[in-house]
């Protein structure tokens, strides 16, 4: 429905004689670019999840653990409020994915334009990307990323305006101008980074606004029930089912904490920190496994264009993990994502760096 509406808009826009509308043929033109041969590399072996086990302090519904009985014990996420606006934004992500994120079917310029319409709907993805901050980074008290100059001063904390928004918008505009499939990969990576950062951020601010726990749940699952998931969750479930399962437990832990601590401003910060850590560990591991899977997809691509797509995705999304990697692993990842040529990537080293994450 969304896409249909968007295409209708596009049809109207492209069909009128508005002088500001570029030539339709130019928009439809595919990128005249040589992506070279596919890289010759060995896809990393699937991550070993056999050692994965929750911590003793982790929450799991129905488990005999240290957590008091709470609303999450039936294994379902019980919303603080029935309506969660973030679900619509994940829906927009999925609609954009249908348009752009298939490396085997390069999008046209019109697809990018339609994707931008979806991205920049009123109260849509862009409105939240522009204000996203990452509270895991320490900044002086009162730092406000909405103020001019602050994102430039604290780019890690103000990840939305400093990094993600220019990244995503730049990708869309590049695609509109030249239908570059690697631009789609950057958009995909940027949006996934946003969903990852948002899941974390909303878990943090749930302390003073209980409904932000709902947003955390929605940014991860897209509002799906029964351990399902759209958006970020769909990617994690595909790349690392165990991480997806643990992420669900983390969301349930978050909700359990807010059920047990239902004051306007939460007071049980110890339980809060346990829940946050459980969720953060799971989704960070999941995010790393997505990159690992894409490295494999790059090696298995079979043609240069698809490989370039996956490499563009990995090198764009890789920096999302800098804050959580150890020093040597970070150095490895930084060195690899600096490479333009996917054929030059040390896939094994990159995968090993990602394997350093604790299995949730």
């Amino acid at each position, binding site marked *: *429905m*969304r896409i249909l*509406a968007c295409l*209708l*808009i596009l049809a*109207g*826009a492209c069909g009128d004689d*508005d*002088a*500001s*509308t*570029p030539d339709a043929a130019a928009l439809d033109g595919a990128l005249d670019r040589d992506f070279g041969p596919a890289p010759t590399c060995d896809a990393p072996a699937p991550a070993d999840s056999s050692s994965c086990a929750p911590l003793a302090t982790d929450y799991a519904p129905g488990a005999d653990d240290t957590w008091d009985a709470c609303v999450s014990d039936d294994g379902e996420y019980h919303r603080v*409020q*029935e*309506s*969660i*606006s973030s*679900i*619509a*934004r994940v*829906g*927009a992500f999925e609609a954009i994915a249908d348009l752009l994120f298939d490396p085997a079917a390069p999008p046209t310029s019109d697809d990018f*334009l339609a994707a*931008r*319409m979806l991205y*920049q*709907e*009123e*109260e*849509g993805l*862009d*409105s939240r990307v*522009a*204000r996203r901050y990452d*509270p895991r980074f320490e900044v002086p*008290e*009162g730092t*406000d*990323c*909405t*103020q*001019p100059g602050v994102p430039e001063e604290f780019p890690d904390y103000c990840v939305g*305006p400093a990094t993600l*928004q220019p990244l995503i*918008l730049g990708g869309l*505009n590049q695609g*509109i101008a030249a239908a570059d499939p690697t631009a789609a990969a950057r958009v995909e990576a940027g949006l996934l980074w946003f969903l990852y950062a948002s899941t974390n951020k909303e878990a*943090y*601010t749930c*302390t*003073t606004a209980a409904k932000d726990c709902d947003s955390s749940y929605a940014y991860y699952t897209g509002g799906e029930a029964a351990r399902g998931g759209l958006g970020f969750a769909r990617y994690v479930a595909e790349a690392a089912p165990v991480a997806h399962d643990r992420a669900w437990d983390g969301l349930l832990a978050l909700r359990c904490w807010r059920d047990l601590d239902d004051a*306007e*401003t939460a007071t049980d910060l110890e339980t809060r920190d346990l829940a946050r850590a459980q969720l953060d560990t799971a989704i960070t591991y999941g995010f790393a496994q997505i990159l690992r899977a894409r490295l494999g997809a790059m090696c298995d691509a079979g043609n240069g264009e698809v490989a370039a797509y996956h490499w563009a995705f990995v090198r764009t999304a890789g920096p999302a993990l800098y804050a959580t990697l150890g020093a040597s692993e970070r150095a490895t990842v930084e060195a690899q994502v600096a490479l333009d040529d996917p054929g030059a990537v040390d896939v094994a080293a990159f995968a090993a760096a990602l394997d350093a994450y604790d299995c949730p």
Partner: protein
Amino acid sequence: MALGALAFVPLRAGAQDDPPDAEDVAPDPAEVAFGAEAEVVPDEPGESRARSTVTRAAMDERQPQSTPDALRWVPGVAVQQTSHAQASPYVRGLTGQRVVHVFDGVRLNTGIYRQGPNQYFFTVDEATVGSLEVVRGSGSVRYGSDALGGVIRAEPLRPHLGPVEGVVWRPRVRLRYGSADREVGGRAQLQVRWDDTAVQLGVGYRDVDRLRGGGVVRHRTGGGTLTRGDVAPWVPRFAEEADSPPSEWRTQLGTGFREATFDVRIDRRVAPKLRAFAALYGYRQMDAPRTDQCPAPEAPVDECLSIDRQWRTLAYAGLRGDAGFFRDLALTVSYQRHDERRRRDRPRSGVRFRWDDRVDSLGLAFRATTPLREAMPRVALTYGADGYRDEVHSGGEQAFTDLEPERVFALSRGQYLDDSLQVSLGAFAELEVQPLRWLTARAGARGQIVEVSAPSDPESGSASVDRTFRSLVGRMGLEARPHRRAAILLNVDQGFRAPNLDDLTGRQQVGPGFQFENADLQPERALTSELGGRVDLDWLRFEVWVWTTRIRDGIQRVVREIADCPPSTPDCQGSRDPFQLVNAPGSSRLFGGEGVAALSLPQHVALQGTLSYAWGEGPSLGDRFAPAGRVPLSRVPPLQGTFEGKWRHPATGLWVGAGLRWAAAQDRLAVSDASDPRIPRGGTPGYALVELRAGWRWKDWLQVSVLAHNLGDVAYKVHGSSIVGPARGVRLTLELGPR
């Protein structure tokens, strides 16, 4: 005599058409305590109602920034400001489309008057207003649909009529400066009179900068330090001040505006007590950001929803006065165009939205009184009919501004459905009987029909609308005068409001979230019962009212779920809270009281105080978190009051005065209030503001007025407002030229 903002007004004074010798003597403001007799308001519902008048002289002394602002000292009225360039008077707890606005007999309410506080009365240029009158309580018999909470009538400055020798030219200039928002502006006016004809021309302009408030108004409960919104409401945001921490910033983003006005009117006496007139009033507001959306809560500070232009043009012609059989004739033919362009800029995102709404209104209103029996028992019949036709054009577009060339896409619909229409026809009659010298009885009724139609827009999931609403309302009143200086008054008045185009078709971002239409709404109906008493002595005027208003099928906002949003409305689906208007099941109830006392002391000292209280509750609409049973109505003002004192020195023309305006905290919040980013968590704190006034008038040619406001430099918000009230500052007005 003549004390207080509440004026005794003759029941059928026909005041603007008094004999020339009386009318030509311009009142001397120096002789006016609070200006109550400086202007005589033309008769409308009679002195039997609870009403207050603000005169030109009072406005000159108080120096309001806008026409609604001039009502802040009126009992029963609170003035909410969604932005710096708009203000919406609450009358007995109701506002927006539940209060009728009238300018010189022309109804200003149109089919797109918005629910809740709106900006429209701000477009009446304060500099052109001769007096304001607030009639509190329902009044649909005289004023038709929308008159649930009351009626606010603005009467323009009119040229004096009367025989003169030759041609008389009266140029006048007014200049004003305000320090809190660095307002600079003025008005130039020229009156030309000859024979029985007068022409008045005026132009005005002002440039208003960002408003400096008293500081951050913080939450009353809860809190934390994670985000700015944990400390204080997200609205308003403040401009960075390098030398101060954020908690001490004061200059508010999303404030400031520009305004230009023009007016021309010609009045001619066509019979001894009958005046013909034609007038044109133009208002042009530009670059007026909406404070609560400039930026939106949590959004980058450079994002802004701004009213690029809000242009209102009103042209009308008519007759006023006595015309044989028709006493107090008021016949007006009018045309009004309201043109609004809003723009949401998100520069970092390279996107811009723009919406255009225009409503063209044609109106015809007739009213007259015919005495049926002059001897006791006296009987008089007042009757009238009116009709208005509002045609709405609306559209919107989205543009990608960072593409070369810029790409622009038309949105399938604007805030309203293009080519919508609202037609309203009504007629009323009111009988007044005075069987005894001390007793007067009044009763009246109105029949009204309102038709609303709008085309469908399948792409946005908007259904067509074709509705007809018929209403019959009545009123009755008793006035007993046990003494010629005292009166006891009892009134029972019905009010009704047919859902308008805004209710039935509008989609818009409102303060607490996104509001979408409900094409199935039914009219809301009110019943106001009020009991009042007045004492009017030479040295004391005292008036008190207690009242209750019961609203059936009240149209209120209910929080909806995302799944309820209309199709293809991402701004609804992505908003924090979607809202829809519904008819509340059962009755809502407001009650309260107002009082005013004005005292005239020796040595030209005058004192006046007012006290107002309103309390409102309605049935729970089943919103999330709403308790079952009864819940507070949205944004009902708290207990509030004023006190003013003044001393004047007639020999020199000097005067000095002081004022105190206060409001208690309001912690009775509706569900939508609790999620409103303008309202502090736990409710709006109370406040008390002190101001000093002084002035000097030299003959009839020069007047200087000074106002020092908010002497305590208090950080305060009027309940429900976006803006923090002006910081400590001054306003200066200089007027040159003959009155």
